């Protein structure tokens, strides 16, 4: 069944990548302003992350929404945990909380 496959692939990606962003487009060419905003934040913090383009795979695009019970893209995962979408990540970045969460989880940031 395709849905099982998508969920399995998502679980594997999330456990294999300490910082993982499901997004529209790629980190170099984001195709949505909200995805671009999160890429910009991670780049500003100097965080190494992997981006997965949901536009390239309809199964993953729907699968990730079911997985997290979250209806929108982008979605940021740190060390296997769903951190939030663009609004939450932006809010956490502005308050300095994001940097703290990353540090607490052992993810290197710049400065």
């Amino acid at each position, binding site marked *: 069944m395709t849905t099982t496959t998508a969920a399995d692939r998502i679980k594997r990606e999330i456990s294999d990548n300490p910082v993982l962003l499901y997004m529209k487009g790629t980190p170099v060419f984001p195709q949505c302003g909200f995805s671009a905003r999160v890429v910009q934040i991670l780049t500003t913090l100097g965080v190494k992350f992997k981006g997965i383009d949901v536009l390239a795979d309809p199964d993953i695009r729907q699968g990730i929404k079911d997985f997290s019970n*979250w209806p929108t893209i982008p979605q940021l995962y740190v060390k296997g945990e769903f951190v939030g979408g663009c609004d939450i990540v932006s809010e956490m970045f502005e308050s300095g909380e994001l940097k703290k969460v990353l540090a607490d989880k052992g993810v290197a940031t710049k400065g």
Partner: protein
Amino acid sequence: MALDEATIEKLIKAGLPDARITIAALADDNDHWSAQVISAAFKGKSRVQQHQMVYRALGTRMGNELHALALQTGVPEE
């Protein structure tokens, strides 16, 4: 396709009756909105859970008819 301001507010209110909702347009297309939702039901919940409660109120519309809703949630000040 798009959802108007009054419909968004009505849907959120139906799910979170005590909510104080402020909706603003992000673009002039009836499709990109920002909403601030303040509700006592958010108490003790993480931000992810708070947003999920609003999304639940909006049902399947979020990500479909409603393309973009920038959300800010919080609990009322004591």
